[in-house]
């Protein structure tokens, strides 16, 4: 990755009007150098203000930085330049979700699903958002489902119950999170309320953060994180497509068994994300 950055930086130095800024900014973003990535993207857009891909990259950088208002504006710009851009539609849905604007999130993610119906991660996120809407407004949801030609969101139920048989009698939690902490599958109820997204919000970006730190420390890739609480043992591991798999069980459950549950859940998640579940 360092070689790529050096090569792209040289290319940009040779030709400041080069589109190499796109790849350079994205590479820097993935590496976590968000401040530099932002500078590169902004400078590039000064020369190419009507380049939708450039605004998309800048929006991702803002989203990773947590500046959701700016991310929203940039993705809005992408849609003006490239109507139907799936990345922008998903991005806008993501921002709305993080801001608690579930109905708007559902609208954006639905549009993304129409443009790219094979994107399983988007479908998982959409299913989760729909489930949240259904949980918070059961009456309105019933009306909407009845009015919808596609019927109720069956996929939401499938995603939520994806790990039920693995958890079995453990009464624990199983969540598959994307790199931003959005729930792709699974759930966890406390007092009848699904708190999966609240758990996910705290853990969004953990995988990237651990990966970067391990690289700096020369410890190789991270394979698992286990934390124990007064009531439970929670185990996490990196999943496919930068996702994070998390399972938990009561304090009485041996840690080795929790790890076994994690491995089985990860296999299930891999199949789910591949779209063959």
């Amino acid at each position, binding site marked *: 990755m360092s070689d790529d950055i050096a090569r792209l930086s040289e290319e940009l130095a040779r030709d400041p009007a080069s589109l190499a800024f796109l790849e350079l900014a994205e590479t820097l973003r993935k590496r976590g150098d968000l401040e530099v990535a932002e500078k590169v993207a902004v400078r590039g857009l000064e020369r190419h203000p009507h380049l939708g891909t450039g605004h998309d990259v800048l929006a991702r950088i803002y989203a990773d930085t947590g500046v959701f208002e700016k991310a929203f504006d940039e993705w809005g710009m992408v849609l003006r330049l490239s109507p139907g851009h799936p990345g922008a539609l998903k991005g806008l849905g993501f921002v709305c979700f993080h801001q608690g604007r579930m109905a708007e999130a559902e609208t954006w993610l639905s549009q993304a699903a129409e443009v790219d119906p094979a994107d399983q991660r988007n479908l998982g996120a959409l299913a989760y958002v729909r489930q949240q809407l259904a949980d918070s407004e059961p009456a309105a949801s019933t009306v909407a489902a009845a009015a919808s030609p596609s019927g109720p969101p069956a996929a939401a139920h499938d995603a939520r119950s994806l790990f039920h048989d693995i958890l079995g009698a453990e009464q624990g939690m199983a969540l598959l999170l994307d790199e931003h902490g959005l729930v792709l599958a699974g759930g*966890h109820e*406390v007092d009848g309320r699904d708190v999966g997204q609240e758990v996910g919000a*705290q853990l969004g970006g953990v995988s990237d953060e651990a990966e970067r730190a391990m690289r700096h420390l020369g410890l190789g890739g991270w394979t698992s994180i286990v*934390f*124990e*609480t*007064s*009531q*439970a043992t929670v185990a996490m591991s990196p999943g496919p497509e930068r996702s994070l798999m998390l399972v938990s069980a009561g304090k009485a459950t041996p840690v080795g068994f929790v790890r076994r549950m994690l491995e089985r859940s990860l296999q299930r998640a891999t199949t789910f994300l591949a779209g063959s579940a």
Partner: protein
Amino acid sequence: MKNSPFADLLGALVRQRGVTAAMVVSEADGLIVDAQVSIGMRGEVVAALSASLYRRARLAAQAAGYGETTVLQLEAEQGRICAVGKNDLVLVAVTELGSNIGLVRMEMLKGLQGGALG
């Protein structure tokens, strides 16, 4: 020069086989409060990651209704990071894969229960 209140605890940890770093970090900002670190180990990276992971785990556990977080352990291909926390402080140990993590963990919990972190 006066020893820090954590010197004995950190000393006991780094004397364990395979422990390459031991430190107390602030959970809020990931800054090192005190550390005993092997040459070449990037203590500030360990501190920042450990504090962030521990804070995230603690908040996630609260959201899940699981009570207080006690121990966190990260496993990587070539080592482990173990952390216990209390009162906005996190006690961290970095170990090689071949270390006896059970002993390290016991030493850390002993320090925690003994009031080393307040």
